[in-house]
């Protein structure tokens, strides 16, 4: 990407950047302490499923935090970002008080900055590569908070810029699934001038952003604004439409669709296949979160029920596990416990979610793995038997592998168990597309540069290609696929 580093250099040399850089000495910049995010009080926020925990930065806080960034010659933070956002540029716009320009910069790279600012694992990405972290062993610039600030500022200012779209070229394109992968794909394709329809199986648009990630971490209203933007740009949304069932790919081709992007996600919940897992009271995190986030089962006027336990055990250490366990606290559990087979250091969840969970009184039973669920007289789960673990040698993922401590087994009393040990790719689409090349993990195989599958007019991205991954990677895939599908169609249709 020599081109990009050239552009970065040129932009860094813009007059306003040079002036801003020289206005404060670096030795002063580094003395500023990293901003603390204002948070809702733990005792208050656990009373509500919708109270967002992080309150966002004020304009003063954001500018001060942005002033910590030294606008490095080699901005390593960008290497940490899966979509290579021009981080110093948007940060410096914030320092300069030009918040709308900061938001516009973000949007050149990311379709949903308000979402990514909230849910990206920054401590493993951009902020891990920040000069402060790498060279000074200090707390990194709060890139995630700043991203969220700029995007929220734009949204709340009511001055959202609906991007310009090219003249319609009349070519119909379908995106399957409405998670971040498809949404970012659709946003780009509509800009290029295509007729874009997004098909979604559920009755809500947004994929995991709606049915999975809870309101206290990502308010639906934030996602809805982005969806409204896409609608205004001309994207069609067809909900309650299962591609492969409601209509086949052939049916869609007959309706005039020329190319397809599959962003159907990794929706299939994994279970451990241990005794008692089908007892009442044991369920997947997807079921639990869907009942609450998609069906509003926590609200009294909802027809969908949800179990409310006194003692809820959540199995797993990822974001999904944190979302489920914190939801259970909000639904009134007295004890909410994370059961994880490795230690805190290996947890795949965002650091911030673990911290918030701890503040909310979530108990952590690390180095423990369920081996059986035991019922009460009514056949509901009443206990979980746990095998205690210790950490052994690192495994393929580089994390130390948990091994059982022979004979060290404990039982704890629970009334709900939520299994959040990962998801597998949704098998529905592959099952109905003969000739689509799949991996042995059930993901769709694509050319990594173009996201094109073994069937030329079919592209794919997000979790259906990667297995359970992240929002930003899904969005990156969607953009990449849009770019290369555009090239493919230009050739094919002589545009």
């Amino acid at each position: 990407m020599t081109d990009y580093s050239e552009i970065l250099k040129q932009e860094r040399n813009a007059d306003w950047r040079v002036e801003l850089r020289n206005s404060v000495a670096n030795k002063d910049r580094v003395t500023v302490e990293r901003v603390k995010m204002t948070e809702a009080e733990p005792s208050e926020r656990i009373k509500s499923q919708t109270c967002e925990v992080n309150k966002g930065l004020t304009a003063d806080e954001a500018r001060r935090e942005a002033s910590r960034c030294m606008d490095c010659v080699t901005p390593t933070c960008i290497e940490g970002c899966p979509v290579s956002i021009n981080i110093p540029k948007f940060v410096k716009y914030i320092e300069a008080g030009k918040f709308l320009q900061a938001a516009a910069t973000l949007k050149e790279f990311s379709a949903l900055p308000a979402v990514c600012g909230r849910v990206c694992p920054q401590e493993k990405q951009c902020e891990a590569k920040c000069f402060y972290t790498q060279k000074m062993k200090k707390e990194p610039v709060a890139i995630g908070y700043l991203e969220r600030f700029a995007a929220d500022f734009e949204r709340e200012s009511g001055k959202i810029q609906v991007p310009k779209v090219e003249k319609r070229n009349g070519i119909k394109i379908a995106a399957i699934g409405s998670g971040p992968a498809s949404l970012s794909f659709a946003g780009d394709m509509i800009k290029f001038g295509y007729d874009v329809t997004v098909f979604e199986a559920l009755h809500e648009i947004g994929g995991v952003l709606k049915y999975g990630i809870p309101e206290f971490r990502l308010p639906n209203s934030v996602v809805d604004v982005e969806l409204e933007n896409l609608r205004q740009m001309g994207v069609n949304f067809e909900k309650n439409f299962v591609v492969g069932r409601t209509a086949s790919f052939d049916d869609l081709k007959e309706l005039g669709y020329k190319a397809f992007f599959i962003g159907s996600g990794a929706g299939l919940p994994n279970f451990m296949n241990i005794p008692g897992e089908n007892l009442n009271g044991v369920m997947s995190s997807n079921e639990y979160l869907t009942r609450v986030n998609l069906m509003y089962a926590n609200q009294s006027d909802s027809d969908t029920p949800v179990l409310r336990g006194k003692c809820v055990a959540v199995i797993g250490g990822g974001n999904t596990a944190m979302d489920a366990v914190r939801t259970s606290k909000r639904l009134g559990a007295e004890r909410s416990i994370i059961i994880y087979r490795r230690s805190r250091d290996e947890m795949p969840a965002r650091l911030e979610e673990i911290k918030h969970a701890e503040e909310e009184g979530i108990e952590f039973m690390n180095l423990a793995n369920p081996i059986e669920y035991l019922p009460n007289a009514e056949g509901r789960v009443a206990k979980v038997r746990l095998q205690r673990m210790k950490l052994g040698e690192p495994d393929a993922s580089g994390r130390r592998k948990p091994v059982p401590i022979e004979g060290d087994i404990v039982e704890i009393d629970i009334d709900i168990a939520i299994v959040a040990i990962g998801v597998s790719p949704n098998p529905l689409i592959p099952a109905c597309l003969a000739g689509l090349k799949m991996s042995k993990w059930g993901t769709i195989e694509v050319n990594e540069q173009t996201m094109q599958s073994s069937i030329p007019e079919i592209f794919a991205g997000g979790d259906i290609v990667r297995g359970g991954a992240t929002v930003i990677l899904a969005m990156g895939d969607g953009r990449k696929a849009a770019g290369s599908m555009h090239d493919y169609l230009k050739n094919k249709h002589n545009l």
Partner: protein
Amino acid sequence: MNKIVEKQRLSELVFKFVVEAPMIAKSRKPGNFVILRVGEKGERIPLTIVDSDLEKGTITLIVQNVGASSGKLCVLEAGECITDLVGPLGKATHIFKAGTILAMGGGVGVAPLYPIVEAFKKAGNRVITVIAARNKDLLILEKEMREYSDELIVMTDDGSYGKKGLITEGAEEVIKREKVNECIAIGPAIMMKFAAQLTKKYDIPTQVSLNTIMVDGTGMCGACRVTVNGETKFTCVDGPEFNAHQIDFDEMLQRLRAYKNEEDQAKKK
């Protein structure tokens, strides 16, 4: 939004709806179901597609008013709309020429059985159908079933119509009388359990269609888990039809009660 074009009361608690859904009408096969939702806070409820009309672009659903959610649907009238409707879901029934088919339908289970009986008949089988209900007033689709059955036996628990007795009694008479190649049974879980026991005794391959709890119906949540041949399956995508002799019915009956306390509380409100 899908418009209801026709509504008919089949018995005290059972209603038939003909609903506009042209795409589903075209792609559905016997054994498929839909999931629908009434109102913004409505529950997602699965219903088997009983029939479809390609020309009119409609599907037929039959629903028994048993709880808050089915109740919300049952008060809708022709001309009104169903908030959300998605399908066809689930695997289609494996229809083939088996010889003699014995079809058993209990209660509102007669409705999902109907398209299957029709398909087996059209595939050239001899079809003997046994339908049952608690009493005469609760019996549905008798006339329609008769059309596609070489023989129709009606059973009621109280003897108010047809023969008095359980559906399995009617079925066993047939099995004793003549060679049956394949059975299919749909109805309350407890009825399917006993039907499975009966046909196992006579070693007749049997399919049942399970009505587990569901949320999404697309394989995403696992609420519909059932144990088949010792393995966990998702009813909505791996079924709804399974080999009756491999199902852990006791577990299934238990799982149907998963939200009983919550539902009882909702009823009190």
